[in-house]
C-alpha cells in the first residue's frame, strides 16, 4: 500500500491524540476531577485509525463502550469531547452521556454504547436505512470480543446478510471481556470464521498494524459501497490498561501486558513512516508534541467549561 505523506501524518497524529486523550483522562480521574468511570483503549489505536481512515466524512460509525479512539478517528472536536468526558454543559452530549456515550451525530459518529453488543442491532437498522436512502454511504459497526458471544451478535449477523446492508462489522478483539479471556471460548480467527456461516466475507488482521487494518477494511468498504453487502473483520489487539477503573488485573500477568506493549501500534507505524521516508524523525516528534498540546488545550477548555444547570435536567428526553 502506498501512503501519501499528508495521510501518514494525519494517522500518526490521530493515534497520538487518542493515546494523549486517554492518558489525560486517566490523570484527570486520578486527580479526582472526573465523576464517572471510563474504559481506555490505549494499545488499540491502530484498529480505530486504520479502520476509520477508509471512510468519507458522510459515512457513519457506531461504537462500543471503549470508544474514545473511534470518536477521535472519526474527526471529533477534541474540546467538545473532553468537555463531555468532564460532564460539561458544552460537551457533545451536554453532560448527559459522558465517556460511555459520546456521539457526534453531525460528524457521522452514532455513539458509543454502554451495553456490550447493544450497538449491533442498531447497526443493522442504520445499515438498512443507508440502503433505503441509497446515497452510497457505509457504516462501520465496532464491537468487542465480548459482544461476539452475545445473542445480539447472532441476530444482527443474520439480518445484515438477509438485507445485504452496506455495513462492515469490526470486532476489536482486545482478548478480554472484562476478565473473561477470549481464548477460553474462541480465537480471533474463529470469530472471523462466523462470517462464512452467516454468508459474508470474514477476515482477521493484526490489529496493531494500521496498514493491514486499513487494507482489509478498505476492501470491505468497497464491497459494501458496490452493493456487495456486509463483511466481518476481526482486528486482533490488546488493551494495556484494565477493563475500567475497578480492574485489579487478577486475570492476566504483567509479563503478558509487557509482551503486548512491545507491539505498540504507534511505534510500529512511526517506524514504517521513517523507513519509507514519509516523514523525518523531527517531523514525527513534532506530530507527537502537537497531539499532546491539542489534548492539553482540550483539558483547559473542559475545565473552564460550565456544568449543566440542574434546571435543564429534563430537557431532551422527548423531541
Amino acid at each position, binding site marked *: 500500500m502506498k501512503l501519501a505523506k499528508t495521510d501518514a501524518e494525519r494517522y500518526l497524529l490521530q493515534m497520538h491524540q487518542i493515546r494523549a486523550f486517554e492518558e489525560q483522562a486517566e490523570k484527570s480521574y486520578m486527580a479526582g476531577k472526573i465523576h464517572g468511570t471510563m474504559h481506555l483503549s490505549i494499545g488499540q489505536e491502530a484498529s480505530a485509525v486504520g479502520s476509520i481512515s477508509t471512510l468519507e466524512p458522510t459515512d*457513519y460509525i457506531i461504537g462500543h463502550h471503549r470508544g474514545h479512539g473511534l470518536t477521535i478517528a472519526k474527526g471529533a472536536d477534541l474540546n467538545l469531547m473532553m468537555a463531555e468526558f468532564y460532564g460539561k454543559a458544552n460537551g457533545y452530549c451536554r453532560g448527559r452521556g459522558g465517556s460511555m456515550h459520546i456521539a457526534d451525530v453531525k460528524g457521522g459518529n452514532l455513539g458509543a454504547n454502554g451495553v456490550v453488543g447493544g450497538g449491533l442491532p*442498531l447497526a*443493522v437498522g442504520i445499515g438498512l436505512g443507508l440502503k*433505503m436512502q441509497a446515497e452510497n454511504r457505509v457504516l462501520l459497526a465496532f464491537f468487542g470480543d465480548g459482544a461476539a458471544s452475545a445473542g*445480539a451478535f447472532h441476530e*444482527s449477523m443474520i*439480518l445484515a446478510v438477509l438485507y445485504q446492508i452496506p455495513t462492515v462489522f469490526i470486532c476489536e478483539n482486545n482478548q478480554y471481556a472484562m476478565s473473561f479471556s477470549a481464548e477460553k471460548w474462541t480465537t480471533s480467527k474463529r470469530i472471523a470464521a462466523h462470517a462464512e456461516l452467516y454468508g459474508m466475507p470474514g477476515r482477521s488482521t493484526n490489529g496493531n498494524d494500521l496498514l493491514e487494518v486499513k487494507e482489509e477494511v478498505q476492501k470491505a468498504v468497497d464491497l459494501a459501497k458496490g452493493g456487495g453487502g456486509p463483511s466481518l473483520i476481526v482486528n486482533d489487539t490488546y488493551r494495556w490498561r484494565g477493563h475500567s477503573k475497578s480492574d485489579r488485573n487478577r486475570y492476566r500477568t504483567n509479563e503478558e501486558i509487557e509482551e503486548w506493549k512491545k507491539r505498540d501500534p504507534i511505534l510500529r507505524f512511526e517506524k514504517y513512516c521513517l523507513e519509507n521516508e514519509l516523514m523525518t524523525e523531527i517531523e514525527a516528534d513534532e506530530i507527537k508534541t502537537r497531539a499532546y498540546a491539542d489534548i492539553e488545550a482540550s483539558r483547559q477548555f473542559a475545565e473552564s467549561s460550565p456544568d449543566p444547570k440542574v434546571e435543564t435536567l429534563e430537557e431532551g428526553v422527548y423531541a
Partner: protein
Amino acid sequence: MRVISYLEAVREAMTQEMEHDSRVFLIGEDVGQYGGAFQVSYGMLEHFGPERILDTPITELGLTGAATGAALIGMRPIAEIMFMDFTTLASEQLVNQAAKLRFMFGGQSTVPMVLRTPAGSGTGAAEHHSQSFENWFVNVPGLKVVMPTTPYDVKGLLVASIRDDNPVVFIEHKLLYKTKGEVPKELYEIPLGKADIKREGKDLTIIATGIMVQKSLAAAEELIEEGIDIEVVDPRTLRPLDTETIISSVKKTGKVLIVHEAVKTGGFGGELAGVIVESEAFGYLEAPIIRLAGKEVPIPYNRDLERASVPQVEDIISKAKDLATLKV
C-alpha cells in the same frame, strides 16, 4: 360513516401513512406473505413490495434494533412484535437504546419509531401469549405508550404515533381486532396524550385501559338500568398521561374505579390512583379509590381459569355498584 374493524383500521393507518411518507416501512416476523400472525398487514407486501414490508426471521432483539437504528438516521419504521410477551426479548433495544439515545446524546438525535404489539388474554393461548406489560414501558422515560380501544381511535392514534419523533410502544388488544366501528377513509391524527371520555355520567368515574374500556361500557349500560350513571374515561395514551381530563372527571363524580387487565401489583392503576390523590381531586373523593385488575397469576390455559384471571363485565358491575352505594 363507513364501518370497518379495528384490525382494518390499523392496516389502513399503516398503508395510508406509507403512501404518504416514503420513510415509513414495516418490519416484523411474518408480516409479509403470511400477513402477520393476526393478518393485520395482509396484502401490504403486494402493495409496497419487500423493500418496505420486511419479513424477518425470529429476531425480536434484532428487528427492534433494526427499527431503532433506521429511525436514528431519519427513517420512520414500524416494528411489529407478534405478541407482547415477546417484547421481553426486544427490551434491551427498546429500553436501553430507543428510549435513551436522544437524551444520552444531548438531543443530537431523534428516534421516530413505532413498536406495535398485540397484548392481552382471552384466546386460550396461555402463559406465553397473553400478557399485558404496558406498565413496564410506562416506567421508562423516553418512551410513549399508547393503548387504543376503538377502530376510530386506533387509526388516528397510529397515524400520530408514526408521525411522532419519539419511540412509541403501540399496544393493540387482540380481542379488539374484530370489533367494528365508524372510521373516516381519509388520514387523520388523534393527538397523543389526550384522554377520551367514552361515556359521560355523574355518579362514578371508571378509568379503564385497553379492552377494559369496552367491558366498562357494557357494565355502564347495565348499571344505568339500576339508576347508576357511570362516566368511562379512556386515557388512550398512558405516557404522556392526560391528567387534566382524569382529574376533572373525578372532581365531578367523587368516586373512582380503575380497571385494567394487567396484574394489579405494580400495575398502571397504582399510577392513576397516585395522580388523583396528589391532585386537587383528592378533596372531592367520597370513597376510597378502587382498583380492579388482573389476578396475581400468570395467564392460564383452561377457559374458566383464564377468564377468572382478568376482570369481566360482571366483576366491574359488582365493584361499581359497591362503590356507587359506598359499600367499600
